[in-house]
């Protein structure tokens, strides 16, 4: 395509991608969760990391997460076009081609794993590669369109970053990062099912077998409560582990009580009540779920920061 046709008005200039469109392919909002949880995993680990190496590690873990986001957008372009929430993403909007997203995703996947291996260790790099594989192949390509348990198993991909952060520092895995994994893994289903309750048309239009579509909304409400109940002991176990402390325990107790109370509130409502007030309780539960996860990891970070001062920890 020549510039002359563009000047001429022969093409739609809205189709030309800007730099921001390539950044959007990396799902920056999801990346922020990856950065934060990986950072906590790295900082609470019992081995000190050089600050520059730690910074580099987090940067490339985030880039790996971004790469898997681009690959997810490449594969899911067809359903993204159908869903209102995702219709303006760079590929469905026509600003970036599917091939470009695939190339960017694969290129950044390789680069992030290679650089993480060079900066820290190859165990952490292999773990990052496995996480990208899990998110793209196991979740996006395999599970997302075939089973209503997609969110449950696929949630593991989002739960790996603190383990990778820990692996960057120690070169291995221990009980504490496994508990951090469990916290995010079990938090993901109620978080996304709450979203699915008030974004109902989107998933059914796209044919994604979300629990709300396959098993109904009443079953989804029950599932949310069951998962919050299973989640609570893991959150408390993490607070009682060597990386936790009294502050983490207090935060965990408060957040889990509030989370369970929110899930009970959702269970007690039916569709008529929810629709009448615009899914207020469901939306509030969804927003609180973000605070829930942030609160636990922030408490772990505070615990690690207080420890050298003689406070924090058990």
């Amino acid at each position, binding site marked *: 395509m020549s510039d002359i046709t563009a000047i001429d008005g022969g093409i739609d*200039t809205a189709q030309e991608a800007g730099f921001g469109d390539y950044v959007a392919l990396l799902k920056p909002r999801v990346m922020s969760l990856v950065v934060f949880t990986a950072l906590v995993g790295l900082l609470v680990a019992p081995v000190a990391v*050089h600050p520059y190496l730690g910074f580099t590690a987090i940067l490339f873990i985030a880039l790996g997460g971004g790469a898997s986001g681009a690959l997810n957008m490449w594969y899911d372009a067809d359903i993204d076009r159908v869903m209102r929430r995702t219709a303006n993403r760079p590929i469905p909007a026509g600003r970036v081609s599917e091939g470009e997203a695939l190339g960017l995703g694969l290129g950044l996947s390789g680069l992030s794993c290679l650089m993480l291996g060079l900066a820290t260790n190859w165990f952490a790099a292999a773990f990052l590669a496995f996480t990208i594989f899990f998110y793209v192949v196991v979740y996006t390509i395999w599970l997302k369109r075939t089973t209503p348990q997609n969110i449950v198993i696929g949630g593991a991909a989002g739960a790996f970053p603190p383990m990778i952060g820990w692996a960057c520092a*120690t070169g291995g895995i221990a009980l504490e990062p496994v508990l951090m994994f469990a916290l995010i893994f079990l938090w993901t289903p109620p978080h996304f099912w709450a979203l699915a309750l008030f974004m109902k048309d989107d998933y059914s239009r796209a044919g994604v077998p979300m629990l709300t579509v396959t098993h109904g909304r009443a079953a989804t409400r029950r599932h949310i409560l069951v998962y919050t109940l299973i989640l609570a002991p893991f959150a408390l176990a993490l607070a009682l582990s060597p990386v936790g402390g009294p502050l983490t325990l207090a935060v965990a107790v408060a957040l889990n009580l509030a989370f369970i109370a929110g899930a009970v509130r959702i269970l007690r409502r039916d569709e008529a009540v929810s629709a009448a007030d615009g899914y207020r309780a469901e939306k509030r539960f969804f927003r609180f779920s973000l605070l829930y996860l942030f609160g636990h990891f922030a408490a772990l970070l505070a615990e690690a920061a207080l420890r050298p001062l003689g406070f924090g920890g058990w």
Partner: protein
Amino acid sequence: MAIRVEHELHGRRRGRNHGLGLVLGAFVVLVFGLTVVKVSRQDEQGNPPVAAAVPAVADQTGGGY
């Protein structure tokens, strides 16, 4: 239709090129920094440093964390 010297399309392309330039520049600086840190932490034989445990965690073996 009048031909404008600068079209909005060109601005967007320039932005994309500047963005990519900055990213590549930052990558070069990052790798240089990584090299400096890695090399300065090696001993005379070129071996990497032995990982140091965080003091509070080292206490773990003594019963306290």
